[in-house]
């Protein structure tokens, strides 16, 4: 698979490490959210057959985290964003 890195252009997926569903960005506040919510965040997944937004880390490149939109049935990649931009668009500024 080729991942079209927003900054570096087309890169072989082998340069990346895969983490999983991009909802892992939305970590609940461990002090306030409660055990159930944190359990759901840490362990449960939608695991869809079809379009999937997921986190890839460019370990052998610029060390950026990407949100890749990929079809889990065809492996076709339709969108690649910097995870930083995705998080900021959600109002995260740190």
């Amino acid at each position, binding site marked *: *698979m080729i991942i079209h890195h927003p900054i570096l252009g087309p890169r072989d*997926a*082998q340069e990346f490490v*895969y*983490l*999983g*569903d991009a909802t892992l960005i939305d970590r609940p506040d461990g002090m306030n959210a409660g*055990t*159930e919510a944190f*359990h*759901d965040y*840490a*362990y*449960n*997944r*939608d*695991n*869809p*057959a079809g379009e*999937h937004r*997921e986190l890839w880390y460019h370990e052998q490149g610029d060390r950026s985290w990407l949100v890749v939109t*990929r079809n*889990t*049935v*065809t*492996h076709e990649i339709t969108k690649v964003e910097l995870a930083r931009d995705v998080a900021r668009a959600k109002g995260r500024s740190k």
Partner: protein
Amino acid sequence: MRYSGFRVIAEALTGHKGWKPVWRDPAPQAEYDYIIIGGGGHGLATAYYLAKEFGQARIAVLEKGYLGGGNVGRNTTIIRSNYLLDGNEPFYEFSLKLWEGLEQDFNYNAMVSQRGIINLIHTDAQRDAATRRGNAMILNGADAELLSRDQVRAKYPWLNFDNSRFPIKGALMQRRGGTVRHDAVAWGYARGADMRGVDLIQNCEVTGMRIENGRIRGVETSRGFIGAKKVGVAVAGSSSKVMAHAGMRLPIESHVLQAFVSEGLKPLIDGVMTFGAGHFYVSQSDKGGLVFGGDIDGYNSYAQRGNLPVIEDVAEGGMALMPAIGRVRLLRTWGGIMDMSMDGSPIIDRTEIEGLYFNGGWCYGGFKATPASGWCFAHLLAKDAPHEKAKAYRFDRFLKGLMIDEKGQGATPNLH
């Protein structure tokens, strides 16, 4: 029809005109006591033991494709019970004992071959870990042996013992481990279940679940609604898709695992060998092909086919261990969809919906578990209580911190 040596001779003398189809092809009835979703190894074994061991009737197995068309026909056929942890080892040893009596039990030749499995050791730390695991196996009634470097060399003199990164220092061996003809397992269970009145319904995909007041009433399928008092789901890589019909999210990701077979060779490996450090394992089929594999591709996939980098990685692992195979050609590669769980261990449990039960999360180790998985799931369905050997495989273990994490990787399904 019971199979036997006499039957083969009698049929040979009469032109093989007496063989009958091995199972019926019934249309679904309006309602069953038990519906098992998934006509793979685990689903068919569940139906078989429900009928045979737990005396239940009015059972149907619903399969979206054909019987045994999923992972039970795609794996590398290895059986073993060489686990460490308390939640796992008794269960897998139970499974291995069932394998040992399986062919007599269901009167079908599954070619169970206890040819032995060895896990290679390269460092003192690995030897310590293997010793500990071997002791855990023995404590649970399994067999384990620590082989020295010379003993491994006597078995397989052509291995690369002096690889500079992973020199072979010995191995942990389980002699009772081995291989089984995987398709025959599905066929044997299917035939045994059908003979006991189970309806095996193929080309019947579950498209929805009818749930009223927190209780399952039946399933919507591509062949219409089918009512049921209890529904058991055993669909491996499709677990999340099917359980989504009940509104459930699972601690599971679906990943693709590839497997490989080489052209036929003369006898080279008499058992099963794993080279964990090199992400490679291998055995040799009765036809002579080397059957081998390595890691999952590492990203969520429902494609039943993988990509080239893993093929290269597995081939490199093979070459590091067995330089002699350098000119051997790869005959086929294929992929199956693994239900990778959050701690690398399975789930056999009831759900919050009354009458709906789940069996999944087998990662890439489901084949060896087939008999015990079927037995324990049938026990759960029939008695509404977990089987003693599978009592640790609960949904709530993640909430309670009771994970069964053999590899110690945490909630990263692609690393288990």
